[in-house]
């Protein structure tokens, strides 16, 4: 999961970025409206955390322009402007949720999870496929009921695959979800993570499509 954090305050930005990265999200942090638009142009994000009082371009404007371009990226506004009319304006401009400052990190995480879940059309908080279940709230992964220990990147990779179980994900797409800017990506890293996931979840759990990318093995009747 790759998130875009748009926040002009250095302290708040640092804290949010640190907390979310610790939860295995890939996160990019920009500090004004123009940078936010430049980052959004890449189209790699699963969710945007948007402050409203931004230099250069106001957060609401960034949001309206995003929606005018027809992008359905979930947007969570976090702002100190918490008057009802501000909330209404934010939601009307196309925000999916509104979190007034100061907020709690746990609440922020929960709201992010809810938005991501809804984005992928899941009503249930658990992601399940072929006996493997992932709980985004606890970051707990079970295989046939037994807990599986995963590293942060492995967890993020598994989550990306489980979000859209029937989709074929290209290598670049997956890398975009796993790494923020400025994070070194080695050419064979993805192969290493895929390998260790197969080792932990079963060799047939992930299917390689040569020259394109990866997908999950189709769910079979007995497993469901």
């Amino acid at each position, binding site marked *: 999961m790759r998130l875009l954090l748009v926040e002009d305050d250095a302290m708040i930005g640092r804290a949010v970025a640190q907390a979310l990265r610790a939860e295995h999200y890939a996160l990019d942090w920009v*500090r004004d409206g123009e940078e936010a638009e430049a980052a959004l142009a890449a189209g790699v994000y699963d969710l945007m955390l948007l402050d409203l009082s931004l230099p250069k371009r106001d957060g609401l404007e960034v949001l309206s322009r995003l929606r005018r371009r027809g992008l359905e990226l979930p947007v969570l506004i976090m702002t*100190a402007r918490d008057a009802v009319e501000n909330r209404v304006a934010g939601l009307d401009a196309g925000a999916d949720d509104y979190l007034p400052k*100061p907020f709690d990190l746990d609440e922020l995480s929960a709201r992010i999870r809810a938005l991501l879940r809804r984005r992928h059309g899941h009503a249930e908080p658990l992601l399940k496929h072929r006996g493997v279940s992932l709980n985004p709230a606890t970051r707990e992964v079970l295989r046939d009921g037994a807990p599986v220990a995963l590293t942060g990147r492995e967890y993020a990779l598994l989550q990306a695959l489980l979000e859209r179980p029937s989709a074929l994900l290209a290598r670049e797409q997956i890398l975009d979800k796993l790494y923020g800017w400025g994070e070194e990506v080695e050419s064979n890293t993805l192969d290493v993570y895929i390998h260790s996931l197969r080792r932990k979840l079963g060799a047939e759990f992930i299917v390689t499509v040569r020259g394109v990318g990866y997908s999950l093995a189709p769910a079979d009747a007995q497993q469901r």
Partner: protein
Amino acid sequence: MSSIRRRLLYGLLIGIGALLCAAAAAVYAEISDEVDEVFDAQLQQAAYAFSSLPLPSRPQTEGRESADTPLRHLVVEVRDPHSPTPIFHSSIRVSLPASAVPGWSNILIRGRDWRMYGALLAGHYVAVAQPLSVRRQATNEIAAKLLLPLAAALPLAALIVWLGVGRGLLPLQRTAQEVRRRSHADLSPIANAGLPLELTPLVTALNDLMGQLQRTLRAQKDFIADAAHELLTPLTALTLQTQLLARADDAEQRALALSELGAGLARTIHVARQLLTLARQDPDFSAAVADVDLAALVREAVAAHAPTAAAYGIGLHLAGCAPAIVSGDAHGLRILLDNLLDNAVKYTPRGGRVEVHALRGADAAVLRVEDSGAGVPDEQLARIFDRFYRRPGTEVTGSGLGLAIARQVALRHHASLTLRNGGALGGLLAECRLPLAAGG
């Protein structure tokens, strides 16, 4: 309490009353004159009439008169001009003076005024007299008929004046009602349209005052909202930092989180302090004014900022320090200097230079703080003194109040404070011109 209505009523009614009285007096005088003329003519005619009548040979009186008959009528006497005994005498009770001369005279008979006409006619002296009270009565009767409607007009005029004044004062009442309807929450201007000319200046002045009040109230409300909002930002950072501290797994993370938390606390305190300072530097806030040795103040401020500058790797230099005495609040001026220095040091990149010049012009002390930083884009310069304005795209986490406070201090000291790009060091140049104290 004086009342316009009462004053108008009294003034108008007294005026109208006096006018009516004067008119009545004039009319009465005119009637009196006319009546006199008519009655005089009557007397004269009577005299002529008697002279042409055959006279009795011995004195006689009209027999019909009794002692009780009121003396309304003419009294006629006919005499031989050389004898005091009348030949004809019309009244037994009244005898006309024998010494009477021809012509008009007013005489007193038995305590009453009489009008008498005497004439030598056909060899006889004929005198005709009548009490003046008769004509006075006639005058009064005529006057009463003529003046009664005039008297009746007085209360009518009073009523008209009462209504007219009330009507005239109606806009005043309406305006008062409008003003009464206003409160601190509703300071909308009172409608000026349709108001009488006399009220317009008052209402305009009121509207101006309310406008001013509204602006002040709004500014205060904005300030409180801004201040609360500005405190929310560091408080949000604090909240997050405490939570990160709670989540820290190892000593290293904990140490990092703690140092972030410390910075967050320092920042929150700074914002609160700056808010307090700003409130205290309000132009309405009175502080002790004394002669201030500006040169000493500048030296102290520069010395105080030297450690911070050194920590940021910035050379802070006092390039010139001319002695100058200004009249003002030393504490406020120090805050102004501190904030200018703070600003210069914060926004100048490591390895840069900040210079302070204290010059003395003909009538002003000039303080300059220059830096070798990147300056400020012109479109931001216009807003740089705004409260809570922070230059975008900078790492600096200030309160956004420093320059606003500096400007408040400058305003209080009738000093000018300008910021512009392109000082000798290539960065921002802040200049404050303070009027010199008398004899400074």
